[in-house]
């Protein structure tokens, strides 16, 4: 059985570094999430609890579930639809000492054919009258990869990989209405980095449709650099406009550019509305091809559409309603939020092989639309 998913980012349990010298708010967040697009449906719950102790220590714990039902184009082309479940738990602690915060944590993610264990540590230092905050973080993950055949683990297949991340971020108060931030990450992987299920296709004149498949082959190392910056501006009538940009490149030849613009508008004391647009584009990996000229054409072969060249646009809308909870004086505030995102992806060099074509490689280009829904209930205590 294939797997879809991942250990989430550390954002939820590390907390924002912008307010060094103070601990994050004590809160509980409950999330229901649902992704539906490209023949894939993934939904499930997540709960995040953060509690502070003695104004010095903050502890956060998260439990997250993905329930996957997949009949994606990759699956339809070369395998059978499948269902899968991934569970993830994580715990993190922050220790506040003067203007420094020390953080550490652990994440475990398990699927039937993939186990990932990741630990991380970070140091945050506030300086210049708390106008500047610098964070340095390191993360290391160990992954065990297996392969399922007809829903049963293949005893003859076991691989592993390691991921390391070094990062530095800086948050800066620019004016009394403007905040800026900067992030730089170097990520290195080594080990088994491809999928035991995915295949590449190549021209095969002896095949009925003119092509055949063989297993993909990836390099065993990958090094990535990602650089991002964000500016948020508080408008005179209590609204915020924020822009985010990221430049990315890696040793596989992928160059990515991401831009995001978000506008947030409170209405009265209880409602907050927000809208966002996100634009993403990337070049393909050096060893990617939709159709290789022949079998074993090169040392490395990939037809993973995430390594193809494409452009994606995501439009988002958020509505939050704040309220008090009667008969629960220990709850300072509660908020109910719904978020909807529509994502559309147009691939430049990934063809839809489910569409017939007289000549291999002339099938229509593949595109994907996805609906992403979230419902969040939060309390602060």
């Amino acid at each position: 059985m294939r797997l879809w998913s991942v250990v989430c980012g550390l954002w939820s349990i590390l907390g924002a570094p912008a307010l060094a010298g103070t601990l994050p708010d004590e809160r509980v967040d409950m999330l229901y999430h649902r992704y539906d697009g490209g023949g894939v449906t993934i939904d499930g719950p997540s709960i995040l609890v953060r509690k502070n102790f003695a104004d010095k220590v903050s502890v956060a714990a998260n439990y997250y579930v993905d329930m996957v039902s997949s009949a994606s184009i990759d699956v339809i082309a070369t395998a059978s639809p499948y269902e899968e479940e991934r569970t993830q738990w994580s715990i993190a602690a922050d220790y506040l000492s003067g203007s420094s915060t020390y953080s550490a944590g652990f994440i475990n993610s398990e699927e039937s054919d993939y186990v990932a264990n990741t630990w991380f540590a970070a140091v945050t230092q506030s300086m210049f009258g708390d106008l500047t905050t610098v964070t340095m973080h390191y993360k290391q993950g160990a992954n065990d990869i297996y392969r399922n055949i007809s829903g049963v683990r293949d005893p003859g297949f076991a691989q592993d990989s390691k991921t390391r991340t070094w990062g530095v971020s800086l948050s800066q108060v620019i004016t009394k209405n403007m905040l800026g931030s900067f992030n730089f990450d170097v990520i290195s992987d080594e080990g088994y980095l491809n999928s035991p299920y995915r295949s590449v296709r190549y021209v095969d004149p002896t095949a009925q449709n003119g092509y055949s498949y063989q297993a993909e082959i990836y390099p065993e190392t990958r090094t990535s650099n990602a650089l991002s910056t964000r500016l948020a501006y508080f408008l005179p009538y209590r609204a915020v406009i924020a822009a985010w940009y990221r430049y990315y490149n890696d040793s596989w030849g992928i160059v990515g550019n991401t831009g995001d613009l978000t506008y947030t508008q409170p209405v009265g004391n209880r409602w907050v509305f927000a809208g966002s647009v996100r634009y993403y584009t990337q070049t393909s990996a050096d060893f990617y091809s939709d159709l290789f000229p022949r079998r074993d054409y090169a040392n490395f072969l990939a037809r993973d559409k995430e390594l193809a060249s494409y452009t994606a646009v995501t439009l988002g809308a958020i509505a939050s309603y704040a309220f008090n909870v009667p008969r629960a004086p220990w709850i300072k505030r509660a908020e109910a939020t719904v978020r909807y995102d529509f994502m559309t992806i147009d691939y430049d060099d990934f063809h839809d092989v489910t569409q017939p074509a007289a000549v291999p490689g002339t099938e229509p280009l593949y595109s994907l639309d996805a609906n992403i829904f979230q419902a969040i209930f939060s309390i602060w205590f």
Partner: protein
Amino acid sequence: MRRSTLHFARLVLAISLGAGALSACSPIEPWVKPYERENLADPIMAGDRFPISTSYLDHVFEVREGSRGATGAGGGGCGCN
């Protein structure tokens, strides 16, 4: 991989030394006083009003995109077969 790591270590060292030198040698007068930060402290200024949601969306994008990292606190280990 080693070259990138070395470059990153140099960058971190330079930032640390620069910040340390600046903070030690010349006390910088904050140009935004603490009492002027009311707008900056407004929750709507935060990049992640709902960290649980931010984390989820980062995950959605990460498994579909070749790009990764620099989202604010670093991504997680990935098992995207």
